[in-house]
């Protein structure tokens, strides 16, 4: 048998001892306990954990909703300012096609509503001009427009419609020039240029006065050098710009050191509009959006106008009298490096060597050190003023075709010991499109005497002196 220790005896005493508090006393304690209110009985379901989890979940859901539906918010804004008055009109079935058209704008339609494009959208009876590079339009529905805000409608038979290129079954309004057309005197253009440049400098949108600027003035949107202005800046610049340059889809201002051009780019990439001052050189490339490089030409007297609605490149090539004309065209044949004819440096040098060899072989030049100008048209090939016979010209055509060069009314190839220039030249020696390779092309920039180009090889002057 296990011996009983002292602690066991004590435990036994404690076990046998009557309880310190009797059951009756506990009964009294329980009777005195307050009954729990109903709301308090629910309260124990809520603790810090449930409160925190609920708050976090709610925050996440709200943030998700806000993030996932920003367009809807903008969408809602478009309905707010347009309130129906006592006189309202409703949209006809043709008008429902209008929102399906593509329109180049990303600004909320709230501001569109204030622009002249609103009647076009609401009435569906007037032609709408769209940008060549179009973006998908945010779908919206207009229910009612105050009649007093609308301009008188032209008769329906005056609306030229065309089949949509993307949806053959859909008739869309034919593209039309911006209304009203630009009418700015040279003084006003100069004033506008200075005012814009000062404002952009003060707003740090450009860093120096020498920086070239391209501004897109679309309805409800102003884009400066590829940067869309926020609402505050938009208000400021719309006050500066819209008075002289009404917003129009695709309308651009091109501002160089002493140049300002206002117009728009055509589907072929040509720039049409009015201008003042000498055209800027290759520095414009810095300001252009990616993959949009400018080739340009300049004449000695460049303070003249570009005529709205005229494809200047076409006129440039067909019209012999090219004095007083500027051309600023977007070349679509440029490669990624900006080469107009897509020829690499090696190909240019190769072409130069082959042409010089053939010139010597055909006794067109005496030695390789001599210079040569080859005019390359569909009808003739002329080398240093001497028209080649058909048999003699054929190898040159094959050679140039092999280098992906096509004949053109003004196309010339200038070869000197240290460089080769291929381009379309005007009768005054200016180059509209071109590509050059080599060195010593700049002879004297300040006083043109002889052939020279700027360091971008895009600006060529005074070819006559070279002869």
């Amino acid at each position, binding site marked *: 048998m296990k011996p009983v220790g002292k602690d066991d005896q004590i435990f036994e005493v*404690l076990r046998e001892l009557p*309880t310190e508090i009797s059951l009756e*006393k506990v009964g009294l*304690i*329980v009777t005195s*306990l307050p009954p729990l209110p109903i709301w308090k009985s629910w309260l124990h379901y809520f603790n810090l954990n449930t409160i925190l989890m609920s708050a976090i979940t709610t925050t996440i859901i709200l943030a998700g909703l806000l993030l996932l539906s920003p367009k809807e918010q903008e969408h809602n804004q478009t309905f707010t300012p347009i309130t129906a008055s006592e006189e309202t009109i409703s949209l006809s079935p043709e008008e429902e096609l209008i929102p399906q058209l593509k329109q180049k704008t990303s600004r909320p339609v709230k501001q569109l509503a204030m622009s002249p494009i609103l009647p076009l959208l609401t009435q569906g009876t007037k032609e709408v001009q769209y940008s060549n590079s179009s973006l998908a339009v945010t779908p919206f529905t207009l229910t009612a427009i105050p009649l007093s805000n609308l301009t008188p409608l032209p008769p329906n038979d005056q609306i030229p419609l065309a089949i949509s290129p993307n949806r053959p079954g859909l008739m869309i309004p034919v593209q039309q020039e911006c209304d009203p057309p630009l009418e700015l005197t040279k003084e006003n253009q100069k004033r506008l240029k200075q005012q814009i440049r000062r404002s952009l400098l003060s707003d740090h949108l450009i860093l120096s006065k020498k920086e070239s600027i391209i501004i897109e003035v679309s309805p409800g949107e102003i884009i400066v050098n590829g940067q869309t202005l926020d609402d505050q800046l938009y208000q400021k610049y719309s006050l500066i710009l819209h008075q002289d340059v009404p917003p129009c889809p695709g309308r651009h201002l091109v501002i160089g050191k002493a140049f300002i051009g206002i117009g728009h780019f055509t589907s072929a990439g040509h720039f049409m509009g009015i201008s003042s001052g000498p055209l800027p050189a290759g520095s414009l490339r810095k300001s252009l959006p990616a993959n949009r490089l400018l080739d340009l030409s300049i004449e000695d007297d460049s303070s003249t106008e570009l005529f709205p609605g005229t494809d200047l490149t076409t006129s440039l090539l067909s019209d012999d009298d090219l004095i007083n004309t500027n051309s600023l065209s977007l070349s679509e044949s440029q490669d990624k490096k900006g080469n107009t004819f897509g020829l690499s440096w090696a190909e240019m040098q190769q072409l130069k060597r082959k042409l010089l060899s053939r010139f010597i072989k055909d006794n067109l030049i005496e030695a390789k050190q001599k210079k040569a100008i080859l005019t390359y048209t569909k009808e003739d090939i002329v080398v240093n003023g001497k028209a080649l016979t058909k048999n003699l010209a054929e190898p040159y055509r094959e050679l140039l075709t092999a280098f992906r060069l096509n004949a053109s009314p003004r196309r010339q190839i200038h070869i000197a010991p240290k460089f080769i220039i291929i381009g379309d030249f005007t009768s005054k020696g200016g180059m509209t499109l071109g590509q050059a390779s080599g060195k010593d092309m700049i002879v004297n920039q300040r006083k043109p005497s002889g052939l020279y180009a700027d360091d971008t090889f895009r600006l060529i002057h005074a070819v006559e002196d070279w002869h």
Partner: protein
Amino acid sequence: MADPKQAQFMKAYASCHDPFIRYCSALAYGKMDTEDLVQDVLLSAFQHFDSIRKSGELLHYLIRAARNRSISKWRKRKFQTEWVDKHSDHLAAKGISPEMRLDIQLLYRTLDRLPGHQRDALVLFEISGFSMKEIAVIQTSTEGAIKTKISRARKQLKRLMAEKSTTRDMSGILNTLQTITL
């Protein structure tokens, strides 16, 4: 009792009374008023009585609540003379001899030096009279583990009691004598 909830609570509590009060007395000895601890636990149990479905769960709830409250409220308190005196008076009122009261005091002091789970298991087994199985449910452990705990606690208690009896300091003796004479 007018309130049916109170009547139901007392009906369920009746079977838990003895072991619960003994456990509370052991927890509170020398540290606090047993009645305060009991009242505090009863209030909590009464408020949560709706969620305690089975009557058997009430005892487990009371034991756990008493233990948690004694730990949280009187964690840092050591033995206080006034509470020791009060509990000694209570024992005297029950007819316990002075020598046994001294041994009980020594036992509680020694129990206080044991590890928490061992002390609880030993108190529940020896004083409250719970079985090993019940203690295992209360402490959410296995019966074997409780058996081991109690065995180790006993050995440790015996060793400490032996040390205590030989090295009992004079202040303790004087305190005890003072208590007895008063």
